[in-house]
């Protein structure tokens, strides 16, 4: 284990290690490489920008979540409607049975008589 004073000395010496540092220069022919890249890079057209937008993870994930939420909402509302429909049908059936609305001919009416 080092002494506290040694640690502080080492730390201060390391903190000063960038004093007098020379400025780094890029590799030679930087301008040539820059011009080559600028000529390659064409301005993005509308389709490129649209594709770039919709393939961004945040946009894609949001879209998936929205679609799933819409699906869920549709499913729940459909379930509710089905339950209501069953109930209404049952009520209509009970009403029809009660008043014998299902009988359309005279002969059938006879058959249902006790």
């Amino acid at each position, binding site marked *: *284990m*080092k002494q506290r004073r*040694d*640690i*502080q000395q*080492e*730390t201060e*010496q*390391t*903190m000063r*290690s*960038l*004093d*007098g*540092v*020379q*400025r*780094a*220069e*890029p*590799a030679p022919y*930087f*301008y040539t*490489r*820059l011009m080559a*890249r*600028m000529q390659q*890079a064409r301005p993005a057209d509308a389709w490129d920008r649209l594709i770039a937008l919709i393939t961004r993870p945040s946009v894609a994930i949001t879209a998936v979540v929205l679609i799933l939420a819409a699906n869920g909402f549709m499913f729940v509302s459909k379930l509710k409607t089905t339950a209501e429909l069953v109930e209404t049908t049952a009520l209509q059936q009970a009403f029809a049975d009660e008043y014998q609305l299902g009988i359309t001919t005279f002969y059938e009416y006879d058959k249902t008589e006790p």
Partner: protein
Amino acid sequence: MTDIIAQLKQGNEAAFKDLVARWQGMVYNTALGILQNAADAEDVAQEVFMQVFESVGSFKGESQISTWLYRITVTKCLDHLRKKTRKKRWGKVYSLFGQQNELLIDPPDFHHPGVQLADKERAALLFRAIASLPESQKVAFVLQKLEGLSSRQIGEAMDASVSAVEGLLHRAKQNLREQLEDYYRNED
């Protein structure tokens, strides 16, 4: 200096070449200090000059060219770092499913080419500590140490007040000292 800008606005290629030759070292050195990777720094330096070429029309000359260039460089570097962090995070997710990803491997120590040979190891250690600083502290410290900017110039480049920059530098140095002390304490 305003001549260069005026000529650039007219689409003069010689003026652009002159601007690149004059400022490429400054832009590259700043990017290298923040990104700690020569290939990434070259990439970002190219992007900076591409943006300068495209947006010179909107440069009103209210600030110096160097300040404008520092601002673009810092913004591009931070974007690059965020992109890299995002990729690294996704790499970790992919590795959970058994896919390998090279970004998961920690990069080797960074050696700045301008550091004197005697200080090489210490500077590498300091750069490792700088890499773990929060973004704004890292930028302020690099601009001060590698570019020799004053607090006022750093403030102009970072769009912050002098007192805010001094606060950032103070916290950066404090964090670096803590990290280095930890390192030396546990070193056998």
